[in-house]
């Protein structure tokens, strides 16, 4: 089996609640795996915990409980590598390059800064390395003296990628890397990311609500709902044959650029009980109030994430019954 470069096990993240309120449970026991050189796509609505998970992975925050293993290094409440060590392993590219780049640093300064902090490159000059990084993201040298406001969205995102790559990380977390860009330059950034992955053997965690982009990029997909993984598996299985009614609602809701496309109306309507969004039921399946397929057991027992088909997992009583799997009662 290929090397697991990233392994999150039962990660829980709680934030203090407002005033005397209960803590907000942003992650309620999430486990994901990523093979070296592959892409893990994470999809879900806002509030599903996908960005919270990304923040735990890159060490911006520490999980309340659970363990994350990055290339054999442990991150948990008890132990974590030094920030600089962690930064050499995993880097993040954010949605909006204009807010993630310092407006008062030129492209050259922004990339050099990352190199200098890490005393890189060992034994070599900073300047040639900056040129090399720029050429990796297909930006000519003449962009080096420019400030972010002199760049287009696509160019700025390339600089953000170059800066992330400066420390030669093994994993990139891409948090909505194309969402803030003009539609006509998204393809360019996607093509760049695919090429860099092939050339450098990078592993990607791709967080996005744009399901067509996630599909294009990812090998494996994890669907999150209210802090839990509700379905995961290879991208075709999850997106073409979704098992969980939430995944079905999500994929059906993606507007397809084809006037002939008809989406499954019942699953679209499934999401209509918006009032329950922030307050899942105390017991049973958290998706049950919105679910068109709910059966009595869904109101009483939390469905565990179980393997229903080879390498395809879902947390749904109905899907489990259809697959002929009797899930063990949730603990």
């Amino acid at each position: 089996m290929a090397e697991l470069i990233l392994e999150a096990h039962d990660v829980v993240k709680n934030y203090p609640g407002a005033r005397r309120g209960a803590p907000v449970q942003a992650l309620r026991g999430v486990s994901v795996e990523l093979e070296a050189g592959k892409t893990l796509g994470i999809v879900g609505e806002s509030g599903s915990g996908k960005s919270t998970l990304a923040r735990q992975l890159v060490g911006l925050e520490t999980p309340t409980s659970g363990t994350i293993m990055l290339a054999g290094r442990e991150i948990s409440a008890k132990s974590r590598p030094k920030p600089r060590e962690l930064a050499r392993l995993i880097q993040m590219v954010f949605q909006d390059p204009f807010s993630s780049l310092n407006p008062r640093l030129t492209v050259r300064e922004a990339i050099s800064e990352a190199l200098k902090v890490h005393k890189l490159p060992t034994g070599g000059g900073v300047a040639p390395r900056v040129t090399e990084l720029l050429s990796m993201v297909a930006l000519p040298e003449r962009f080096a003296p420019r400030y972010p406001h002199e760049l287009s969205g696509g160019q700025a995102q390339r600089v953000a990628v170059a800066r992330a790559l400066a420390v030669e990380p093994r994993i990139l977390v891409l948090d909505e890397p194309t969402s803030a860009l003009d539609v006509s330059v998204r393809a360019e950034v996607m093509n760049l990311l695919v090429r860099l992955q092939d050339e450098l053997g990078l592993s990607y965690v791709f967080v996005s609500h744009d399901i067509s982009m996630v599909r294009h990029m990812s090998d494996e997909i994890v669907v999150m709902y209210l802090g839990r993984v509700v379905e995961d598996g290879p991208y075709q299985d999850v997106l073409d044959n979704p098992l969980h009614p939430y995944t079905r609602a999500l994929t059906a809701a993606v507007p397809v650029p084809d006037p002939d496309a008809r989406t499954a109306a019942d699953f679209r309507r499934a999401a209509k009980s918006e009032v329950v969004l922030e307050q899942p039921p105390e017991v049973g399946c958290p998706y049950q109030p919105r679910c068109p397929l709910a059966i009595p057991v869904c109101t009483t027992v939390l469905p565990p994430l179980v393997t229903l088909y080879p390498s395809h997992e879902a947390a749904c009583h109905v899907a489990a019954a259809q697959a002929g799997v009797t899930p063990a009662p949730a603990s």
Partner: protein
Amino acid sequence: MSSVPEPILAIHDLRVGMRGKRRDDRAIVRGVSLEVAPHAKLGIVGESGSGKSLTTLSVLQLLPPQLTVLDGQIEFAGEDLMKASGERLRQVRGGEIAMVYQDPMRSLNPLLRIGYQIVETLRAHGVESEPARERTEQVLRQVGLTDTARVSGAYPHQLSGGMLQRAMIAMALATSPKVLIADEPTTALDVTIQQQILDLVAEIQTETGMAVVWVTHDLGVVAQLVDRVAVMYAGRIVEQAPTRLIFEHPSHPYTAALLGSLPRPDAEHRGELQQIGGSPPDPLALEVGCPFQARCPHAIDRCVQEEPPLLERGEGQLAACWREPELWQS
């Protein structure tokens, strides 16, 4: 447009920009004409800087202070809104023509309860308090916010993004407008919520016959919702056609390139997406010739020298491209 019904809203040759004092006027929207009839849904597609939002803001004269309508007419039910008095415009705004914007948090007053804000809108349009309260409850129900008491009594921060955008739509619908102008109203929302909003607007439109102008950069939304599309680039409409034709038979290289750059479900996994080189031009630094020319794979000398006019290409399709006849008509 060749369709029979009289347009309820018609924009003729609109130019928006900065009025020059000691220099020439600088236009960002450069001659846009659009029409929408009752029951019709028009989509305006374009990237940031294409002038799509300025076009819609001009309709109700809500442009930012440094910008002004340089030229053109805006006709609403036969009335020239450019000549309308301030008093009349206040009646039209939020009354006969309603607008919904991208970010509901910024369009609502954070210090006032939702219900109060909708009632106030109605009161501003001459509805008495009691009927206004009844109408508020009715429209909240209509947009699926069935717990009207809770929603009415809530402050904006107490509702989710989807609920707020529904409340905004309820507010827009309260006065039974003849035209709804929606500027990227679902861009900030999750796809599931977006789908609800699209369904909701379609449903209400069937009931009331209001015309809808939907501004977006999402071609998927266009395909699902509207029946006619105007594609804007660098302040002009470069293509306009019935939705089906735009997707089956795009007539402008920009439209074709946009469609080609989307990752489609049947495309090769991780395969190369069709890239559009370069980036959208600065609307204030346009050079002569076709503004898409520098990024266009089909550009010829003429494209560099002369900007192509928007011409009828049959079947209600218009395109602004010198090479359209030879490239696309086969």
